């Protein structure tokens, strides 16, 4: 799965997610990606999220919308992302990852799987990482 979230100069947020799905899936199986609130969600009043992971688990907790709900309750992008992923793991045993932004341009890339390749561009700097805790930077 791949995805992106962004905030533009006007403070508008958007998300996009795309996937080939699960390995050796049944023909006709559709996962979380095309489902609003699961594979992604974007609302200028809270932020935008794109998700990846076990689709059936993500759908059961509507992960993208859940994270934005936590942000609406005052949580930061990082805390809301972690709360959503932790809820998914404890409730349905699913692993996954997300990228999240709020309309002010604060962002997070969080996951509870072993790895997730991610990158972010802001203010002329490229941030990127693969394992939890990594945040390498270089000038763009």
């Amino acid at each position, binding site marked *: *799965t*791949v995805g992106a979230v962004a905030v533009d100069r006007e403070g508008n947020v958007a998300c*996009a997610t795309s*996937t080939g799905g699960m390995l050796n899936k049944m023909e006709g199986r559709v996962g979380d990606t*095309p489902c609003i609130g699961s594979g992604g969600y974007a609302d200028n009043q809270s932020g935008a999220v794109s998700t990846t992971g076990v689709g059936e688990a993500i759908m059961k907790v509507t992960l993208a919308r859940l994270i934005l709900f936590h942000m609406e309750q005052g949580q930061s992008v990082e805390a809301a992302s972690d709360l959503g992923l932790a809820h998914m793991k404890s409730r349905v045993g699913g692993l996954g990852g997300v990228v999240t932004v709020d309309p002010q341009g604060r962002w997070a890339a969080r996951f509870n799987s*072993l790895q997730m390749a991610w990158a972010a*561009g802001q203010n002329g700097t490229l941030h*990127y990482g693969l394992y939890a805790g990594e945040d390498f930077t270089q000038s763009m």
Partner: protein
Amino acid sequence: MLPVVVVHGGAGHVPRTRAEQSLSGVCSAARGGYAVLRGGGSSMDAVVEAVRILENDPHFNAGCGSVLNVRGDVEMDAIVMDGRTLSSGAVSAVRNIANPVQLARLVMDKTSHACLTAGGAQQFARSLGVPEVPQESLITEYSRMRWKKNLAPDANPVECQMGKMG
């Protein structure tokens, strides 16, 4: 407020041999999306461009490089959503399309529907002149190898794809 684009590949297990290409791919996509923002483009333009770049990169499970279903075919899903209006568009189980994210955006821009699936999505793509590509052009040696490996009766495709917890 500073414009920003954040991109991701799949959560799960990235083999050591593919780690460098995966990082290089997400960095290219972030650069592509950020260039759109720097040029005055909208956040929607930026996320579609970033995901288009990742779909064209064979190291990711989307577009070219998608995993195969049990029959050895590619079936892809995509979504876009615009935070200004809550407009969204999605496609599911589409085949023979190089960039499903662009088709999802067309669903958002050109129809009143939220999601088109399988043959209907294909017909919609045709009606708008979206080029079809051969299935083979979306399949990599790596995805075929993983498909074969997981045809064994005792295979665990979810564990193979997701790996361990972080």
